[in-house]
């Protein structure tokens, strides 16, 4: 067992939700990513041990889905949508701005930031849009995107939250987002209780506030 006590506790909580242990493989893979920052062989082995399947079966599942990152993607994964609506609204320029500012071509990462193309992220009404650690920002411009990357590099937020980023860097939204989400993602995996989330500093949600 190489996992922290906290991750093992999370694993227990997740396993308890399923009648078949192997059904927990996919959520546990996010716990493995949270533990190591990406999906390592050790992480997959740990998931296999917890669910009673073989490591080969875990890897088979993990390698099928592209949100399970088997290479380091940094602390903040910026996924720029380049599907049709965003493409028409200038996603390529936004992506180039992100690449320029981060100094990283799409598909690669440094210790802090990873940049990637993404297929449609379901925010066509607010195109062009991108995700940071699967938290959404809509109505981006190349300049705002550069600010976003600069903010990630300088502020090094522990928690990534869509409302906060939308307030700081976003433009037109596809619809009214409604109630503010007060928790956010703590790594390059979706913000979902069992994988780990953290409270957002609500002060940061005031529009126009910059660091």
């Amino acid at each position, binding site marked *: 067992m190489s996992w922290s006590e906290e991750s093992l506790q999370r694993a227990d909580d997740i396993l308890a939700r399923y009648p078949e242990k192997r059904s927990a493989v996919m959520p546990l893979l996010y716990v493995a990513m949270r533990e190591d920052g990406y999906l390592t*062989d050790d992480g*997959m*082995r740990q998931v296999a041990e917890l669910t*009673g*399947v*073989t*490591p*080969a*079966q*875990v*890897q*088979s599942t993990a*390698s*099928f889905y592209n949100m399970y990152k088997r290479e380091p993607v940094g602390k903040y994964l910026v996924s720029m949508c380049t599907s049709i609506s965003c493409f028409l609204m200038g996603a390529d320029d936004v992506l180039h701005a992100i690449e320029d500012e981060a100094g990283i071509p799409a598909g690669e990462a440094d210790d802090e930031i990873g940049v990637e193309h993404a297929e449609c992220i379901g925010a066509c009404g607010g195109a062009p849009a991108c995700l940071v650690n699967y938290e959404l920002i809509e109505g981006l411009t190349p300049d705002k995107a550069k600010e976003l990357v600069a903010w990630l590099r300088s502020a090094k937020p522990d928690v990534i939250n869509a409302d906060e980023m939308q307030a700081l860097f976003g433009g037109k939204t596809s619809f009214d987002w409604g109630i503010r989400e007060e928790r956010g993602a703590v790594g390059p995996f979706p913000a979902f209780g069992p994988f780990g989330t953290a409270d957002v500093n609500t002060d940061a949600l005031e529009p126009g506030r910059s660091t």
Partner: protein
Amino acid sequence: MVTITIDGTEVQVPAGELLIKAAEDSGTYIPRFCWHRRMNPVGMCRMCLVEVEGPRGIMLTPSCTMPVNDGMVVHTKSPTVEKAQEGVLEFLLLNHPLDCPVCDKGGECPLQDQTLSHGPGESRMVEEKRHYEKPIPISDLVLLDRERCILCARCVRFSEEISGDPLIEFMDRGNAAEVNTFPDEPFASYFSGNTVQICPVGALTASAYRFRARPWDLREVASVNPLTTTGDGVTVQASQNEVLRFLGVDNDATNHGWLDDRSRFGFEWIASPDRLATPLAKSGDGHTEVSWGEALGAAAENLSAVIEAHGPGAVAAIGGARGTNEDAYALASFMRSSVGSPNLDARLDDGLGTHLLSSLAGKGEIGDLETARTVLVWAADLKEEHPVLYLRVRRAAQELGATLITVHPTATGLADRATHTVTYRPGEGHDLLDRLRAGSGDLADVRAALDEGPVVAIVGRTGLAEDPALAEAVTAFARDLPQASVLPVVRRANTYGAIDMGVAPDLLPGRVAAGGDAGHTGWEKADTSVGLDTRGILEAAADGRVKALLLVGADPLRDVPDADLAARALDAVDVVISIDCFLTDSTAKADIVLPALGFTEKEGTVTNLEGRVMKVNRIVSGPGQARADWSIIDDLAARMGRPLGFESAEAISLAIAEHAPAYGGITWFLLDWKERDGVVAPRDGVEQPLQYIPTTSLRAVGSGGAKRGGFALHLGRLLYDDAVLTRQGASIADLAPGAYAVLNPTDADRIGANGHVEVDGHRLPLRRDASLAEGTVAVPFNQPDGPPLGGSSHVDVAPGAGA
């Protein structure tokens, strides 16, 4: 049955059957890659597309996932189907490297064959194909070429559905999809060779066969796996007088086409340079080569002298289970009739009572597992000792929904599919049986499951340190369960045949009890009394009561659990004559060594654990001057002035069919031409003399052994051990893990053991297994450099120094 129309012809097929199988069974072969009749359908390769007429018109449908319906109209050769097949093949060949000239599968490749029969003939693909490193080893025995793979998932499904060790899986997806293993976890399955056989392309190849032959240069013969007691159907393939490959044959009654890797790759001993090719006579510390005349003359003279000086009872024979039934019948005839001694035994102190094995043979069949509601396995770990039976039990539990109960000192290879895993400390089996019979305490659920018939009970010794009388008691219990079939299991290949042929102290050929009124009509005069079993023979030899020992394919120093007793016996006797394929530890002590033909070098019959008699066939000649056991024995008898008059193995088989009651009417002609899957003896209408009589207080047949220390000893076998035929096969010789000791973690902590332990003074690496009963130490039997512990039931365990 329902009626469907295939290509304009009406056929009757079983309702609910998959269309591809119904069509094949009624004479229409639909091409396929992924579908396999022993595995669940997945519809992955799309090669089996056919047109099925339905309410919405005629639709292309994969026939491997479509069950038949009454009135279904199917077209398998229409222009649309042919176009679809061409399209599928063009896609499958997009990335296929077409390196057929250097591919082992070339010439027997379904992809090649179906491209010829159904393919487009040319490709429109002009782009660069996918490239991978090729081939990569994925285990000690199997290599993977991902470029050739067409992603049919046969290997993946086999490892998950059939063998239960899913170590090979699809990785990635789309154009990058590939079959592979986890980075540091090889495809170390006991059954990995089956995936090589069922791979429809050359993606999986076996290191033992790679580049050894082209398929069209191979001759082949149908036979039976010589290394297990399940009677697995095999095809033996040879080229230039050398056996090169074993393939599993889909025998419905036994192996369903599967083989374990030891059986599949373990044929290499046949061509081992260490095979004995010339008779040897002892000279000084070693042996010198002599002629057959000299060797047989000396052997006959020695045996005659012992008989004259000490009486025929001073001659004893051990072994005979490695040969055919014909060899065994010759041996029994020689011992009981020519020599006049009842002291012979095919078991090497590792078996069960002969009456149990013989009287139940033919009563239960492996096929009963297909309809079993409850399966009880109170025997050795089937995965290690009876691998094909393990697959059949796994299938019963996993695919057919039977309740599986295993009773063993530890969790077995079936643990992941067992409904109830009952463990006990060796020596406490009788108490456990009493509690199980009463259904008391935590065994109430188990008892209730056993009341749900039909029940199949697989009964044997869980380990070599266990009292064989326990298996008799378990059998007596299991026989009374509802609709019970009991399969008593021992491991050594043709033990059942040898015992049925009378190579047993208390049986005459054809399952007749010795010591009774019934004699044997094939012999004019014979000693038909009850003689000594292997342990009795070795004790008598050590005491000086047995003076001459005939070893027939037996290596008591390694195979008898009490190696110390075997050593004292071999040292004490005056004469040791050995008929063997190799110079083993025991054979090396023989005065005369007579080289024997082995499996694939002779014709004959063998009998499996059900009592099924099956034909084995010859495809290569033996080394040098080696001869068949029966012929050696016949010649020896003649030189002693007590001829048996056997002229050929087939002549012996006719004598068996005539004189051995339970084998009445079972001839080579029947097995060669009518019953290719074998015949369970006795045949219908033939009476078997020996009837099962439940015994609960039987004299211990095996060691039982001395109680020397505080830990109960569990001495089980592993698939790969240090037995001579395993050691002589280059591919599998190094797969034995070596000796180790297993303790329950509680015990290990209690005695403060870490890293190593001393078991009766032998230092062994320690493994921990929480499923092992407390107060027990488990040590695998006959591993390279393993400790001789077989003489005891209890041993001392101390923490190893310098952990």
